[in-house]
């Protein structure tokens, strides 16, 4: 029972981490290597708002999300748009931005274990004989909400449909009057906000540390590759596969081996099915 419940929680956390990354990549084909940095930044901003300005928690959280969305849009509009379409430059530029943010934070404030977001909900409940604290339940709840919300947004609003159109075929979308640069900005803002949302529920489970940025990037990438890059449903399924695999290794082998699972999953997937478990055939050609 432990395995089942903690497996689900772990899987949803992974899905939350990966959602922003796969969203941006799916829509604008931009691998946002600054994803992990955005994640940590969201937590740090929220902490600053809480402690420096003394704002109430929900307000601080929403404000942090809004700031993240703006920051993501600005990052795209000012820097990334200039290198769009040049694969090498896209990777290096976004990675460099992420590094600048993370290492800047490490130098500027995040030293040691002093920065801790308080949990949103304290206390714990027993589910089927397993004690789970409320914050972890909140993670699952928010994960479900975000995925559901995203699905509704993409399938039932004009903007969402435009994004979906662009994800499917950018040129065709252009001929239908969808401004692809504007959509990419929207995608980036959404992706950053998703990274922020993930940070706000996941970070209270531990300290805010710079290493989390690299971890999140690695996990997001692992989930996306296993699920097939750009495929949202694939990413969610892959999050569950990797999430349960991790919990199982922790239980059976010990926590040291947890890090190996991600890279092993990637390598196995690449050898066995290069376009990801749920990737489409079209992506195969572009990748291999």
């Amino acid at each position, binding site marked *: 029972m432990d395995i089942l419940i903690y497996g689900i929680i772990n899987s949803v956390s992974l899905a939350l981490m990966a959602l922003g990354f796969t969203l941006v990549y799916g829509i604008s084909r931009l691998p946002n290597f600054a994803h992990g940095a955005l994640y940590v930044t969201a937590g740090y901003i929220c902490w600053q708002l809480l402690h420096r300005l003394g704002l109430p928690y929900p307000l601080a959280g929403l404000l942090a999300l809004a700031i993240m969305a703006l920051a993501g849009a600005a990052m795209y509009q000012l820097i990334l748009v200039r290198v769009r379409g040049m694969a090498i430059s*896209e990777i*290096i530029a976004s990675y*460099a931005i992420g*590094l600048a943010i993370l290492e*800047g934070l490490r130098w500027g404030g995040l030293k040691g274990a002093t920065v801790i977001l308080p949990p949103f909900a304290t206390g714990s409940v027993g589910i089927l004989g397993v004690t789970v604290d409320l914050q972890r339940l909140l993670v699952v709840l928010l994960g479900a909400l975000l995925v559901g919300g995203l699905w509704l947004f993409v399938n039932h609003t004009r903007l969402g449909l435009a994004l979906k159109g662009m994800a499917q075929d950018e040129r065709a979308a252009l001929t239908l009057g969808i401004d692809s640069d504007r959509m990419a900005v929207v995608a980036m803002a959404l992706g950053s906000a998703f990274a922020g949302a993930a940070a706000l529920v996941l970070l209270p489970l531990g300290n805010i540390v710079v290493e989390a940025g690299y971890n999140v990037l690695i996990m997001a990438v*692992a989930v996306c590759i296993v699920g097939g890059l750009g495929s949202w449903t694939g990413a969610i399924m892959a999050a569950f596969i990797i999430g349960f695999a991790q919990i199982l290794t922790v239980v059976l082998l010990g926590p040291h*081996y947890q*890090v190996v699972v991600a890279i092993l999953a990637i390598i196995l997937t690449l050898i066995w099915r290069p376009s990801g478990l749920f990737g489409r055939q079209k992506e195969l050609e572009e990748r291999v």
Partner: protein
Amino acid sequence: MTEPTQDRRKERVDRGIKVRTDGVYAIASWREMAYLLAPRLTLIIGLLGLPIFLTAFPYWQKVVSIIGIYALLAVSFDFLAHYVGLVSLGGALYIGVGAYTSAYLNTWLGLPPLLAIPMATVLGGIICTLLMWPCLPLRGVYFAIVSLMFPLLAARLIEALDILGGTDGVLGVDGLPNRWLEQYVLLGCLLLLLFGLRRLVNEDIGLVLRGVKDNDQAVKASGINITTFKALAVFIASCLGCLGGATLAHIYMWAGISQFALDFSIIPIAATVVGGGGTLVGPVLGCLILVPISELLRDFGTLRIAVYAVILTAFIVFKSEGLMAYATRKYNQFERWVNI
């Protein structure tokens, strides 16, 4: 430019001497030969003379070795990214593998450093190529992502599983006999490899590699196995990195987790972008500029990585050709305004 641009434009024309030296007239006179030799001799004499110029500053002399190591890595990054199309964000893997291999050859088998370094270079190259092998069918973004994870995971594994000396690393590695040897081994190898690689990319194999970068389907269609050629390229590149790593282990007399650190991944990339990608010499120039900056910023800890990342972003967005490409253009061509 304040002038209206409709009726005037800038025209670039090759210098006469450049055109002459392209062909057999290159040996027509001393002037032509000097034109061809000047840049190459500047590089060779400049690099080899560097330790001598800095005799008075022992601290900066040590930096020369570090520059050499980063330059090796940067050249390998440039070769992989611009001639084979594999963007490897994890240069630290090569340094780490080279360092550990050489350290073990030295401490376990008791090989002297001058024997351990070349052996670690080749062995490390083989190890890195084997590690990368499953990822070789990938290209572009996908390869970048996976290569980024290797050094991070290697460090994490060594730490978590407490293998290879754990967090203490491998202690008691012999140093090189003296500082001059240390620098000239590095700089000499760097020059040899630099000119060797330049030769290599213009040979048939270089053509195939560039084909892999530009259109791998076409290369496949010609009946050439692209994975083999990618593996070969990765082997060459990782040998360069491992050479740097092996030397580093003997300079610090220690091999440890910090040799998988981020600096080794990011500085070569920054140097390549600043110096000019695809020129092979550019990265060396970039290292000569960036590594001293890094030393000056040493007191600020990780801020220097942030500084690098900012320089890198600025260059890649606003001046993506790099310094070397710019200098080459100025050397070979002149510009003038013409009326349209």
